[in-house]
């Protein structure tokens, strides 16, 4: 399951999609919107994607993860649009024969997604400021960055 969605992410479905009788371990990662980062209070986030390229990159990540780790199955679902504090922005699930591999693969997948997949977030603060979050540019730290 590799998907962009504007709807609430059903992480139960994401998780079930990777379960396999050959796997002894499943790891699910959820990125969730933090309300407070340092002294900044987040009102909401807006996630924008370059959809065709984002889907292609997510498939490439899944394929590369399967080469790096002994993975049975991978699922990556990212939400776009407007999200509030506590909402799930991304769900990544992976199943492997043994548990250490599942944690390693899950961490590699979210780290790589945040480096490569063309999705951006714009943060709206409760004091009215609105900033695009672009690592390396000078925008203030955002409620979801880094998670």
């Amino acid at each position, binding site marked *: 399951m590799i998907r962009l969605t504007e709807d609430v992410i059903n992480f139960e479905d994401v998780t079930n999609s990777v379960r396999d009788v050959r796997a002894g371990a499943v790891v699910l990662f959820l990125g969730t919107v933090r309300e407070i980062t340092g002294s900044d209070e987040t009102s909401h986030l807006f996630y924008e994607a*370059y959809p065709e390229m984002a889907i292609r990159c997510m498939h490439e990540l899944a394929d590369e993860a399967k080469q790096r780790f002994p993975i049975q199955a991978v699922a990556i679902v990212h939400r776009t649009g407007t999200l509030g504090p506590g909402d799930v922005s991304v769900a990544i699930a992976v199943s492997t024969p043994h548990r250490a591999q599942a944690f390693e693969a899950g961490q590699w997948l979210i780290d790589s997604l945040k480096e490569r997949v063309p999705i951006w977030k*714009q943060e709206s603060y409760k004091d009215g400021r609105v900033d695009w979050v*672009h690592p390396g540019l000078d925008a203030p730290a955002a409620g979801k960055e880094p*998670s």
Partner: protein
Amino acid sequence: MKIKVLFFAKARSLTGCSAHEFEVADGSCLHDLTTSIYTVFPELLSIGSTLLWAVNGKYSGQDQILSDLSEVACFPPVSGG
């Protein structure tokens, strides 16, 4: 030839448009197109050193040769997750 360029996130905010067509000479590379883009949208220069470029949905270097079928995308560092 005409090349369609997509702008995302802060690049879209700065240019004020999500897509724009540019005319470049046949056989141009991405660098040639980039020069045209900065001429039309000089406001992009403020983040120019951080901009990333994709041709047909793949990250591409400035020496990438373009064709009239190329879709180019221009965007700042990604921040999904």
